[in-house]
C-alpha cells in the first residue's frame, strides 16, 4: 500500500468517526428542541444532556482533525476546495459556532433557556446540509477553471437534483443514527419513556434514509457515469450494508439488544461510507484533483504518519477512559452521580 492510500484511509476513517459522533450530536440537538416544542421535554432532555455534556467538545475536534489532516496530506485541496468552498463552509462555521457556544451557554449558564435550545436544534439540522454540499461538489460538474483558478457554479449546484438528494440523505441519516443511539442510551439509563420515544423516531427515520440512499446511486448514473460504474463494482458492500440495516431495524422493532442494533448501524454506515469512498478513487475533486497529484512530499507524509501514530497512542486510551466514565458507567448514565 502506498502512502497516498494510507493517508486518505486515515482521513476517511476520521471523517467516518466525525459523521457518527456528529450525527448523534446534531440529531440530539434537534430532538431536544423538538421535544420542547412538542411538550415532551420532560422525557428527553435529561438523557440528551447527560450524554452530550462531556463529549460536545470532543465531537468538534474530530472535524478539526479531518480538515487539518487533509490539508496536511493533500495540500492542493487547500487551493481547490479552499477557493470554491468559501461560502458554504463559512456558513457551516457560523452554524457550528452558534451550536457550540450556545450549547455551553445553555448548559452551564442558564439552564432551560428555550431560545438557546431552538437555535441549537435548528443549526444541527442545517449543518449536515451545509457540510454535505462538499460531497456533491466532489462529484464534479460544478467547478470550472477560469484563469487558472477554480470557480464554483452556484446556479448549477443549487439546481442539481443530486445536491438536494444528498442534503435530504444527510438529514435523514443524522436523525436515524441519532435516534438509534439515543434509544440504546436511554435504555441503558433505564429510562423507559425516553427509550420508547426514541425507538419510534428511529423507526420513523429508517424509511426515508434507505429511500434517499438508493436514490442517490441512481442519480449518480446520470451525473457521473464513471463513478457509478465504480460503485457497481462494489455492489456486494452495499448489499452487506443493506442487510445490516435490516438487522438494525429488526432488532429495534423487536425491542431487543439495542446495543447490538447500534453496532449493526455503525457497520452499515461504515460499509456504505467506505464503498462510496473507494469508488471515488482516485479523485478528490472529479476530474481536477486526484490523490496522487495533490499528495504532499514524502518527508512530510512520513512525519505526519509518525505523529498520527504517536497521537493515537495518547488518544485511544483517553477516549476509552472518557467512554468508560460516561457512556458505559451505570451510575453516571442513570444519573446517580450528578455533576456540580
Amino acid at each position, binding site marked *: 500500500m502506498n502512502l497516498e492510500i494510507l493517508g486518505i484511509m486515515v482521513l476517511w476513517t476520521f471523517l467516518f468517526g466525525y459523521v457518527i459522533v456528529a450525527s448523534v450530536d446534531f440529531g440530539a440537538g434537534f430532538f431536544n428542541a423538538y421535544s420542547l416544542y412538542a411538550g415532551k421535554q420532560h422525557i428527553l432532555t435529561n438523557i440528551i444532556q447527560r450524554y452530550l455534556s462531556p463529549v460536545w467538545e470532543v465531537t468538534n475536534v474530530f472535524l478539526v482533525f479531518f480538515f*487539518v489532516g487533509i490539508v496536511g496530506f493533500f495540500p492542493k485541496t487547500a487551493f481547490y476546495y479552499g*477557493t470554491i468552498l468559501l461560502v458554504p463552509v463559512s456558513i457551516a462555521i457560523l452554524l457550528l459556532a452558534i451550536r457550540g457556544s450556545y450549547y455551553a451557554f445553555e448548559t452551564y449558564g442558564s439552564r432551560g433557556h428555550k431560545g438557546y435550545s431552538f437555535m441549537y436544534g435548528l443549526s444541527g439540522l442545517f449543518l449536515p446540509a451545509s457540510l454535505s454540499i462538499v460531497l456533491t461538489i466532489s462529484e464534479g460538474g460544478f467547478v470550472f477553471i477560469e484563469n487558472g483558478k477554480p470557480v464554483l457554479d452556484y446556479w448549477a449546484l443549487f439546481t442539481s437534483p443530486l445536491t438536494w438528494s444528498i442534503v435530504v440523505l444527510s438529514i435523514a441519516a443524522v436523525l436515524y443514527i441519532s435516534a438509534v443511539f439515543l434509544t440504546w442510551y436511554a435504555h441503558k439509563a433505564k429510562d423507559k419513556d425516553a427509550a420508547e420515544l426514541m425507538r419510534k423516531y428511529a423507526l420513523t427515520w429508517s424509511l426515508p434514509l434507505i429511500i434517499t440512499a438508493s436514490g442517490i446511486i441512481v442519480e449518480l448514473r446520470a451525473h457521473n457515469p464513471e463513478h457509478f460504474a465504480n460503485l457497481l463494482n462494489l455492489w456486494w458492500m452495499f448489499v452487506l450494508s443493506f442487510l445490516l440495516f435490516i438487522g438494525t431495524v429488526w432488532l429495534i422493532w423487536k425491542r431487543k439488544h439495542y446495543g447490538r442494533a447500534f453496532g449493526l448501524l455503525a457497520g452499515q454506515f461504515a460499509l456504505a461510507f467506505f464503498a462510496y469512498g473507494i469508488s471515488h478513487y482516485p479523485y478528490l475533486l472529479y476530474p481536477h484533483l486526484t490523490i496522487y497529484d495533490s499528495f504532499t512530499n514524502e518527508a512530510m507524509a512520513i512525519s505526519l504518519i509518525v505523529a498520527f501514530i504517536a497521537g493515537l497512542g495518547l488518544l485511544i486510551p483517553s477516549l476509552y477512559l472518557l467512554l468508560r466514565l460516561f457512556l458505559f458507567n451505570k451510575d453516571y448514565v442513570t444519573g446517580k452521580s450528578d455533576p456540580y
Partner: protein
Amino acid sequence: MFNGDSLFYSRLLTELTLSFHIIYATIGVGVPLMIMIAQWVGIRKNDEHYILLARRWTRGFVITVAVGVVTGTAIGLQLSLLWPNFMELAGNVIALPLFMETFAFFFEAIFLGIYLYTWDRFKDQRKHLMLLIPVAAGAAFSAVFITIVNAFMNAPQGFDIVNGELVNINPLIAMFNPAMPTKVAHVVASAFMTSAFVLASIAGFRLLKGSDHIYHKKALYLTMKIGLIFSIATAVIGDFSGKYLADYQPEKLAAAEWHFETSGDAPLVLFGKLDNGEVKYAIEIPKALSILAYSDPSAEVIGLDQFKEDEIPPLYIHYLFDIMVSIGVWMTLLSLVFWLGSKRSWALIQTKWFRWLIVLGGPLSILAIEMGWWLAEVGRQPWVLRGLMKTSDAATSSNHVDTMLILFAGLYIILAIGSVVVLSRMFRNNPVERELEERHAEKGGVVR
C-alpha cells in the same frame, strides 16, 4: 486577474477572527494552569477555599473554552478559505505542527470533559488534580504548536526552492526555525501572565464591590503573585525577541522603533508621533536600541534604509509596540508593589484606588496581547511567508469575502455579548459566600 477587494477583505476578516479568538485562546491557555495551581495549593494547605476557587474558575472557563473552540475552528478553516495559495505552499512544509496542535487540543478536550463531570466522583482530590495536568498541558502545547506555525511564517526554512518547486523538505527543521524559541516562549508566558491578571481583576472587583471575604483575598494574592512571576518572564523573553528581530527580521524591529538610518549607538524611541517622516514629541533613550538588539551599547542596528520601499512594514506598528511594552512594564510594577505591600502590610494596597488599578489590569493585559499580535503580524507585511510569498499573492480569488466579513462580524458580536452576559450572570447569581455555606451545610459542618 488580481482581485484587490478580496485581498483587503481577506486581511480584514482574518484580523477580525484572530483578534477575537486570541482573547479566548489566551484565557484558554493560561487559566487551566491557574486552576491546577489553585487545586494544588488547596490540597497542600488543606484549604477548601482554594479548591472552591479552582471549581469556580473552571465553571467560567467552560464558557470561554466554548467560544475559543468555535472561533478556533473558524480560523482553522479560514486559513484555507481565505488564503488557499498560502496553505497549498505552506501545507507542504508546516502541516506537522498544525496536525500536532489538533492532537493537543483533542487531548485537552477529552480531559476537560472528564474533569468537569467528575467533581464528586473521586473522594480523593489528588486524583482530580491528576486530571488537570493533561488539560493544562494540552492547552499549553496547542499554543506551542500553533505558534510554531506562525514562527515559520516569520522565518521560513526547512526546504529548498529549485525552479519554483519545493524540494528537500524537512518538517522538523521547519518547526525549529529561528523565530520559534522566542515566539513560543513569549506567547506562553504572556498568556499565563494575562490569565493571572484577568483572574486578579475579578477578585479585585469583588473586593471593591463590598465582599470582604477571605476567599477573594486569597484569590487576589495568589493570582497577583503568579502574574508577577510571568510578567517578569514575559519581559525577559521580550528582550530576547528583540535580539531575534535584530538578527533575522531587522525591518520589523526598525519599523517598530522608527529606526530609519542604519547606525551604531542607536537610541530607543519611546512614544512620539510621526509627522511627514519627522518624529515629534518622542522620548529618546540613548543607546538603548543597540542594547535591546545586541546587548552592546554601540552595536550597529540595521535601519529601514536597507530595505526596498515595498518591503517595509507600515510604520504605525511603533504605536503598537509602545502600548504593549508600556502595559507590560506597568503590570510588572503594579504586581510587584502589591506583592511587597502584602508582605509588609502596606495600607496602600487596601485602598480603593489601588484596587481599581488591579481591576483595570485584566483588560489592560488583554489589550497588550492584542497589540503584541498586531505588531507581530503587521510587522511582517508585505510578506505572508517572509521573503518568500507576498500576502497579495496568497489571497483567495473568490468574490464573496466582503459578505462573509459581515456575517462573521455579526457572529462575533453575538458571541461576545453572549459570553459576557452568561459569565456575569453565572457568578452574580451564585456568589461565593452562598456556595461556601451550601458546601458546609452539605457536609454538616459549621456555617461560617
